[in-house]
């Protein structure tokens, strides 16, 4: 279980509020987080990844503590073994598609299976600037997978894909997740991105 019990004050002078999350996500499954715009979904993912520090509380994976305010402990981002698909992709403008994946893995056959998965084979040599919105989004997904992360955090990862492409990709992703025993946490506004009944839903709401 990923046990989350954190608090964070968000925003300063204007329209600030307090994000409070007390929940647990099952390992090796897909959990979908939903909630209105601006409620703190992205912030929650960043807290799990270690990119943002909560003001208070604890975060642990099974017995392993990742964050504990009282003990002043925070596991380093690099050691959390997470993959992250950023809402705005955050691609490396200096790297081609291929180089993005090489940055995460040395395994050439895994790399080409990823390119296959994302249907990005023909764009290997392209830089992010030279890709369409949907192509950039797929690259962001593939890059996150390249390190074979134990935990995969997806922040609205399919918004730029047409429904057929999305179906093909989510299907392939599902079998990859099973194979790699990935724990997936997905933020999305659409229900059942990976098919019905296959995922747990967590609705984030204001306090």
């Amino acid at each position, binding site marked *: 279980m990923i046990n989350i019990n954190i608090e964070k004050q968000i925003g300063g002078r204007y329209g600030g509020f307090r994000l409070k999350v007390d929940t647990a996500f099952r390992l090796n499954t897909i959990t979908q987080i939903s909630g209105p715009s601006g409620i703190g979904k992205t912030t929650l993912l960043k807290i799990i990844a270690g990119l943002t520090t909560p003001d208070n509380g604890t975060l642990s994976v099974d017995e392993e503590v990742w964050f504990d305010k009282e003990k002043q402990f925070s596991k380093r981002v690099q050691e959390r073994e997470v993959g992250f698909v950023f809402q705005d992709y955050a691609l490396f403008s200096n790297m081609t598609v291929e180089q993005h994946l090489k940055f995460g893995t040395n395994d050439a056959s895994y790399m080409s299976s990823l390119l296959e998965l994302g249907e990005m084979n023909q764009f290997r040599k392209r*830089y992010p600037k030279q890709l369409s919105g949907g192509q950039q989004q797929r690259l962001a997904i593939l890059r*996150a997978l390249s*390190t074979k992360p134990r935990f995969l955090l997806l922040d609205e990862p399919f918004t730029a894909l047409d429904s057929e492409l999305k179906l093909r990709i989510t299907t392939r992703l599902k079998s990859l997740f099973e194979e790699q025993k990935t724990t997936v946490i997905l933020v999305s506004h659409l229900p059942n991105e990976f098919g019905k009944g296959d995922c747990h839903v967590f609705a984030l709401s204001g306090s």
Partner: protein
Amino acid sequence: MEMEPIWLSIKLATITTIFLLFIGIPVAYWLSRKQNIFKLIIEAFITMPLVLPPSVLGFYLLIAFSPNNAFGIWLHQHFNLQLVFSFKGLILASIIYSLPFMVSPLKAAFSHLPKSMSEASYVMGKSKMKTFFYVLLPNIKPAVFTAAVLTFAHTLGEFGVVLMIGGNIPGETKVASIAIYDAVETLDYSAANAYALILFAITFIIVIGVFVLNRNAVKSPFE
């Protein structure tokens, strides 16, 4: 007209630029991270040498490096290093003098990079170091080239500092800028023109070369 000063100048400018790349890039990066009053002061200090006339800066360096001085004696005893009237001293002085031209443009460039770019690298398990070299630095390539060209050109033309702590010794510290200065001083205008032309030609080639390298590799087909 002798060619030795020209070679000496190119050597000095090249070595200085290389050193300054090694020093300036990390310093600029460090300064571009979270600002605090301490960094502000460091930054102000880096800019300081600029406001002194070069020959006066040279004078202070001369005193600082002087073998009559505690620091100079220490250098001499422990490293057998003599900084006044030696090529090594010129390098050190040029580094101090040109530091702001390297650091400032790089710092501005680093501070323009979006934070999410490094975050994306950290979650991939990459250390700060690796992120720096593979993600951040390549993304400010144009600024690196700019800074290197400014530094190189500026060191080529540097003169006051060099004259003061170098002492115009042929083959050791008599660089092209001093030779051309001497030529003008002695009213030998044809030699001055010849030197100026050579310096221009060299810089012209380097500038053009760097800008060609720097030409954005990524071209949109729509432009």
